[in-house]
């Protein structure tokens, strides 16, 4: 590995440690929104994509990236937002899904039919007891990306990272 690519690797690794403030069990790399890290001397440009256009966490995430990359010894850091290709929940890796489950959040399943009308989505199994029988309490939750469900087996309410594809 030459010096340039190792610097790029270091900058990527630093940016990759930033957690999503709305979903602190996942880093932005695990969530799939960290797209590109370019290093030019001590200057770093980090490209991220929002999960939702109105995601209020983007400013906090950008500030976190700047702090993390500068703490790794780099100079000025610019965070660029890119919309295309659009983020989908298919970008979540297997490890990210396991971490969500461990935190009591049901990971997204396959997506809905888009047109003309969305179909009923499959119910996510309970992340706590694994029961298949769960009911939706609200399609919208405390964050734009979440829905609220309850397990009919153990009775516990849980969050579900919505399908977005």
């Amino acid at each position, binding site marked *: 590995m030459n010096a340039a690519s190792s610097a790029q690797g270091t900058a990527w690794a630093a940016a990759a440690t930033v957690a999503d403030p709305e979903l602190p069990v996942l880093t932005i790399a695990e969530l799939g929104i960290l797209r590109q890290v370019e290093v030019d001397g001590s200057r770093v440009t980090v490209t991220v994509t929002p999960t939702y256009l*109105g995601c209020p966490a983007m400013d906090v995430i950008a500030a976190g990236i700047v702090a993390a990359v500068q703490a790794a010894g780099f100079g000025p850091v610019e965070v660029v937002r890119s*919309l295309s290709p659009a983020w989908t929940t298919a970008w979540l890796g297997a490890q990210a899904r396991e971490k969500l489950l461990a935190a009591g959040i049901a990971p997204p399943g396959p997506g809905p039919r888009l047109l003309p009308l969305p179909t009923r989505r499959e119910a996510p199994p309970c992340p706590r007891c694994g029961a298949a029988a769960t009911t939706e309490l609200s399609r919208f939750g*405390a964050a734009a990306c979440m829905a609220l469900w309850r397990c009919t087996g153990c009775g516990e309410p849980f969050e579900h990272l919505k399908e977005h594809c």
Partner: protein
Amino acid sequence: MKGAAYLLRLGDDALIAAQRMMQWCTRAPSIEDDVALANIALDLLGQARLLLGRAGELEGAGRDEDALAMRRDEHEFHNVLLVELDNGDFAVSVAKLLCFSLYQRLLYERLSASADAVLAGVAQKAAKETVYHVDYAAGWVVRLGDGTTESAARMLSAVEEIWPYTSELFADDEVSSAAAADGLGIAPSTLREPWSQAVDEVLAEARLPRPPDGWRPAGGRAGAHTEAFGYLVGEMQVLHRAHPGASW
């Protein structure tokens, strides 16, 4: 300058729909619906910020998203009348949301292939978000329409009340024709048929008759708005105008 007017009307539709929907905050029938409506309004505001920002870039007169949202007067907004109408009861609000979100869903699907890369990017993202808005609105229209005698009567009255205003969504004019010719936008009239089919599907499931087409109020695209709009703009802009440049 080219394309700015088209981006502006898309941004205005999203901005005014968001502002109107936010008025449900703390007033929705249940906490889940309060959260849902706030989330949908936030999605719309996210669309509006990017669309207005792009409109300002294309205009090239130095106006950013804030200048466009907060420093224009009523007659300078180009949103359709449908999104500025008073919220009415919950049935009126979900009827408006159903009609508008189905239109946006189809619109953004098409604009995902826009010649303008920024608009295409916003549309690709927004098309995914809008699926949930349609789903939410359709769920309530069906639940109320196919519900009790009281809920069915009020849902029917709501659909009839807002129905005339849906025609403006599909009206072609010089701005949309120029945008379609440039590959930036599309002619809204081409969305009418698929929209109509999707609305019919929901109304049928809700056991509600489709209102006949008749009176077709319009004017929003040209800056001629309803009386309700002045109050909405006043509330939206008061803080920004009282404290220009304030931030926290």
